[in-house]
């Protein structure tokens, strides 16, 4: 596993060093890859650990983007990003208790519905204010945004690793296996689920803020696009949810695939996304991570 860690560190280093030698195009690709790693890894903090599959993580991304666009120009962008993360976490804390009361398919549908609800509410607010998309002019340099995003990918990965290897993570695993049994052995079930939900929401908020600054354009239908949620889930499941390398592999695989397909056959991308998800769920339940593990002989 030490070799593996060295490999990931080298990868993060490469990502951070790209502005010094890479083209604008390559920077864009690295930004995307880091973004999806951060999102899929954050998602895994709740969904891979507890088995509560969120199909609404776009809502945290969108809340982060919205908060960031409202604050940009008022406070320095670093603080706007932190506020984006904080708002997403706060939003998760507010909705967490009722949402986490339901399990299984109901949780999946509820998170999706909630995300769509917020999307439409924000769209109505924006159109009532007479705004049809907001432009941002004073955005930070591209390389600064890239470093932030790579930093978030690293932070999300370390966070996911720390959770899995802690007592907190052991409690979450017990919840995934059998929630009533977890309660009988003394796991504070409600508290742990809520904490995991908040943890998995914070970084997507910051990611939404950064992605907004990069495109310098806010449009609610885009910021809360459910395709973001679908993509996160697909990447994490295809990558494998048994270990922290799963979301990295899944995010890298899909982000690179989309770069290849986007320029040639953009419509094919969503088809490939769907097909790959089906194939992996049916035939490779442990994902890319499981495949790598089998080849490498590691766990």
């Amino acid at each position, binding site marked *: 596993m030490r070799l593996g860690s060295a490999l990931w560190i080298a990868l993060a280093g490469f990502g951070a060093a790209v502005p010094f030698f890479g083209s604008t195009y390559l920077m864009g690709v690295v930004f995307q890859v880091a973004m999806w790693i951060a999102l899929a890894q954050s998602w895994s903090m709740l969904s891979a650990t507890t088995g509560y599959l969120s199909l609404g993580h776009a809502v945290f991304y969108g809340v982060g983007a919205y908060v960031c666009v409202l604050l940009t120009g008022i406070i320095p962008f670093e603080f706007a990003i932190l506020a984006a993360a904080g708002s997403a976490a706060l939003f998760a804390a507010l909705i967490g208790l009722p949402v986490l009361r339901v399990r299984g398919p109901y949780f999946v549908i509820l998170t999706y519905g909630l995300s769509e609800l917020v999307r439409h509410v924000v769209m109505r607010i924006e159109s009532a204010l007479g705004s049809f998309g907001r432009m941002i002019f004073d955005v930070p340099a591209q390389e600064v945004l890239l470093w932030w995003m790579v930093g978030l990918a690293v932070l999300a990965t370390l966070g996911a690793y720390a959770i899995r290897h802690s*007592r907190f993570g*052991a*409690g979450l*695993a*017990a919840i995934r*296996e*059998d929630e*009533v*049994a977890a*309660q*009988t*052995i*003394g*796991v*504070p*079930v409600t508290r742990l689920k809520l904490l995991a939900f908040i943890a998995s929401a914070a970084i997507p908020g910051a990611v939404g803020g950064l992605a907004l600054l990069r495109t310098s354009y806010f449009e609610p239908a885009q910021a809360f696009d459910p395709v973001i949620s679908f993509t996160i889930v697909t990447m994490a499941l295809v990558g494998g949810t048994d270990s922290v390398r799963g979301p990295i592999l899944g995010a890298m695989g899909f982000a690179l695939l989309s770069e290849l397909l986007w320029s040639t056959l953009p419509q094919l991308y969503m088809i490939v996304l769907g097909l790959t998800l089906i194939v992996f769920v049916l035939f490779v339940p442990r994902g890319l991570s499981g495949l790598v593990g089998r080849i490498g002989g590691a766990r």
Partner: protein
Amino acid sequence: MIAPMLSVRNLRAAYGPVQVLFDVDFDVAPGSVTTLIGANGAGKTTIMKSVAGLMMPIGGAILFEGRDITRAPSHDRVNSGLSLIPEGRLVFPGMTVEQNLRLGAIAPAARSGHSEMLADVFRRFPRLEERRSQHAGLMSGGEQQMLALGRGLMARPRLILMDEPTLGLAPVMVKQVFETIRELRASGFTILLAEQNARVALELADQAYLLENGRVALSGPGAELLDSHDVRRAYLGM
């Protein structure tokens, strides 16, 4: 007289609009085996769940070692020394025997010295040590019952609640479960046992309560209930 370890007073519980417990009173003396017997639906599991904190009663009080725990969350109760071995065992099927046991010590009070506790559990149940790397879901019902009990012991309880531990087990395993309960009492544990298998439970119990339709119909030392005409006729088929 020694103060009871657990006192349940006027316990009332309901599932939605349907009340299932009506002013249930009972005590569990320290170091004893106390049993709740009664037919299916008499309220045994509801009492166990209420004492463990898995459901909130609509009235009454539950005192554990003199402390009112009626509204305490379940993890607080585990942490203060009360452990439920649930009906149906509820082991974590996808985890190994050892992972199951180690999770049993997740309560803060059980953290220190959980390796010694693991050794103690393996000494009591050598079968679990032999199978420590096996997935719990692949074990037989009797082995899963041992595992559930071992996992409960890992929390270092003083009071063990056992809900229908012999349900669905082969007769030879039933005997072993009761043997284990005897050993646990001899080691100083206090046990509250809900059991459909009235005869064996009464033979073992220091104190027994017969439940009927959510009420305590009869109580007394186990041997006394065993001799009672009503109990023999209704529950022992004699």
